[in-house]
């Protein structure tokens, strides 16, 4: 329970409209898209960096935990306040402060929704490359704190590659600023890397300078289907292996494809055991050439059908369907667990075979979907948590999937983050010294352990 004194302080800082403490309000900040839930004691909506600083000062003094929250679309439990305390909501700090395409950057508040940046840039012929499937809802603060990726990160890189500078408030309430509006900047440590993926455990992001890119002249989108999943995966390895880097290359197995088709009715081939959604972009002539090479490679791997999106609307429909995959899966069973182990792209076929083996062995429904071009797998298990026996199998299956990924030279998470879901598995990929190094950093900047406690550090 929060002291009345602290609550009054919060009200003083943000006004009583900005503080929620009724049970029916708190219940709405207990979750993200993962399965664990925990109620906060209070929710505050700061309006400025100064508000954030004052709130953190007060919380530090009282030793009360503070967990940042963007849109709550994390799939690993990162914004779930497992140690209660304050949830600091950023959905209302949502201003785009500056759009400067001449110098190729934007300055935004943390609550700006990813898609709103895209909309603000479109008239100038620019875009912001990181495109998580949640882009219509998720915020830049959340994207940075989880170092989000997305389909086109295959060619363009992930969030960390686009953060030029940040304003961050530390647990003490001190405000720090690093980086600049320059694409090149090697002044001191590259601190933005430290905060990308920090999951709100090191500081609260209050402003970001992001690098933006001119839109490519041409975009081509292909939907390719295959008779079996193995050749689908091999086509991915072959394409990337031959030096072609598409903007995106998404792999879907039969179950996923059917789930999407049920929901979106796009006329996808339900019988295809595997399919690839491939997008290339760039100069028109170069696209033509790449397209030819890709068609060659998929044909060598026994592609059954190759279709190209004829219009922008068709292309958008394919991507909307792809972005719905997670939600569509939720239909199959009450609970859905989605992981994102990542392996070197040459190991994609082996990893998919392993996931399917594990699914069969435990008799579980596992759908496979992947940002395949960069080896980022999204195995999704649909199950029922109230069925204890089944849930135990789910947990064992995931443990084996993590182990397999590590064995193949991969890692636990490509983009979703660690949160509550995977902290127990960190020793699989980091030795004790490395974990201790992370703890030292945490201890140095947040000695009172008030920022998002109970997570991976």
């Amino acid at each position, binding site marked *: 329970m929060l002291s009345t004194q602290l609550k009054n302080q919060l009200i003083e800082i943000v006004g009583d409209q900005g503080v929620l403490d009724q049970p029916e309000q708190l219940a*709405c900040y207990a979750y993200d898209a993962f399965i664990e839930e925990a109620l906060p004691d209070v929710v505050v909506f700061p309006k400025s960096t100064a508000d954030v600083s004052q709130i953190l000062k007060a919380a530090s003094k009282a030793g009360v935990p503070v967990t940042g929250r963007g849109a709550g679309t994390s799939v690993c439990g990162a914004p779930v306040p497992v140690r209660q305390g304050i949830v600091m909501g950023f959905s209302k700090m949502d201003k785009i402060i500056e759009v400067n395409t001449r110098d190729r950057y934007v300055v935004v508040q943390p609550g700006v929704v990813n898609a709103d940046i895209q909309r603000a840039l479109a008239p100038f012929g620019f875009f912001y490359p990181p495109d998580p499937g949640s882009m219509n809802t998720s915020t830049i603060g959340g994207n940075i704190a989880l170092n989000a990726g997305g389909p086109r990160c295959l060619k363009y890189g992930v969030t960390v590659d686009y953060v030029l500078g940040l304003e961050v408030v530390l647990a003490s309430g001190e405000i720090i600023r690093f980086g600049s509006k320059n694409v090149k900047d090697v002044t001191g440590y590259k601190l933005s890397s430290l905060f990308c993926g920090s999951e709100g455990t090191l500081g609260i992001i209050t402003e970001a300078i992001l690098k933006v890119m001119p839109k490519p002249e041409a975009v081509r989108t292909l939907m390719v289907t295959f008779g079996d999943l193995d050749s689908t995966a091999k086509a991915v390895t072959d394409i990337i292996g031959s030096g072609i880097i598409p903007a995106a290359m998404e792999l879907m197995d039969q179950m996923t494809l059917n789930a999407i088709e049920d929901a979106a009715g796009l006329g996808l081939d339900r019988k295809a055991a595997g399919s690839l959604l491939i997008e290339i972009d760039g100069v028109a002539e170069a696209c033509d050439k790449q397209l030819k090479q890709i068609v060659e490679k998929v044909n060598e791997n026994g592609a059954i059908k190759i279709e190209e999106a004829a219009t922008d609307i068709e292309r958008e429909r394919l991507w909307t369907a792809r972005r719905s995959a*997670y939600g569509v899966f939720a*239909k199959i069973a009450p609970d859905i667990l989605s992981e994102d182990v990542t392996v070197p792209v040459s190991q994609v076929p082996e990893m998919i075979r392993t996931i399917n083996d594990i699914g069969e062995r435990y008799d579980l429904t596992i759908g496979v979907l992947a940002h395949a071009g960069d080896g980022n797998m999204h195995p999704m298990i649909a199950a029922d948590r109230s069925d204890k026996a089944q849930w135990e199998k789910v947990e064992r299956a995931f443990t084996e999937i993590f182990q397999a990924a590590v064995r193949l030279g991969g890692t636990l998470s490509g983009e979703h983050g660690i949160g509550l879901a995977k902290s127990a598995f960190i020793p699989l990929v980091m030795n004790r010294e490395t974990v201790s190094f992370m703890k030292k950093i945490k201890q140095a900047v947040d000695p009172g352990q008030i920022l998002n406690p109970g997570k991976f550090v």
Partner: protein
Amino acid sequence: MKQGLQNCGKCGLCLSACPVYGILKEEQVSPRAKLQLIKSHDNKSLESTQGLKEIVSRCLMCGSCAAACPAGIDHYSKFMEMRKQMVADHGESPAIKSMIYLLGREYRLKFGTGLAKTGQKMIPDALARSFKLGNIPIKNFPTLNPKPFRTQQEVIVPAAGDPVGSVIYFTGCATNYLYEDAGKATIGVLQHMGYQVIIPEKQCCCSVPMLFHGAQDQAMSNIRANIEALDPGDVEAIIVDCSTCGEALENEYPKLMEQGDDHAAATQIASKVTHIFSFVNDHMDLLTFDTAGDNPSTVTYHAPCHTRNNSQGHLAVESILKQLPNTDYRPSPDRDQCCGGGGTFFYEHPQVAGEMMAQKLTSVRNMEVDYWVTDCPVCRLNLAGNLEPQDTMQVVHPITFLYNALKA
């Protein structure tokens, strides 16, 4: 199949579709949160409070969340059940109560002996009074039809020229009491197409206002009366000019009658319900237009949420507007943005509704059009009600616009 609460994966995709979340930006008003709250309330981990009722009421019942939800959750029914529970626990505001009472009694008042005459006068006045609030200035409230529309019509209106078939017309309350021009145009267009139009005398309010306000029991007598009145026989379609009525007849009636002996009748009615523009779009060959004149009217369209989310009728409206002679159709960048009307939402939450409206007004003013058409009476009331004296565009139902374009 529509899915239950437990199938919400909390993915958050519905947040971007929800107009109320878009303005307030607080999770608790989001569709995802409302489902969570309903779940917690159902499993008794959350008490029923006035605050809970308040959150549940901050909703336009626009259906945009369900349309965006990849898990196929039926938000509409869940919200309706919850609203009923909340009203049972905490009561309803006097203005809303009187509206429900009046609409619920509409049928009985009109046809009950002795009360008939006073009933007809009473309903519109009191209805108007309960709506003359919210974010709409009183002076902008539309004047009522001098006489309820249906009382001015024959029950069977013959086709003009050779008859090609017959249809039933379900007028809805708005056309009956407020917007008779839409009724006249609907009948006119159908006649022109060669349809005989049957306007069953005993039809009454579709009940949606009551269902949205948790008054299911009151709604039931209206629903039964409508099911009886609308017996389709061999008519080609049951035409609606309002998508909200359409949605109720098509989806809610069969669901509510699931257990009752009226289920078969409700299903039969549901299969014939058609938005007037979808109907016209399928029969464009039956229309002849007045092609004279060289001063095209400029027009833009506001697509009501219920039209977009239930019948896709908005695509028909837009496609027809694009084809009309002497018409300069200007697609609006925020055609699909909710105007904040939402049944009684504009009355209950004027500030939020006002913000939604402000965005729409700016863009329509920039478009410089003569007409701003919309096929939902609440949207129409809301759009027109928020115009300033210097705004010259007229807000009408697109069917009126279409009717005026026909060759006499």
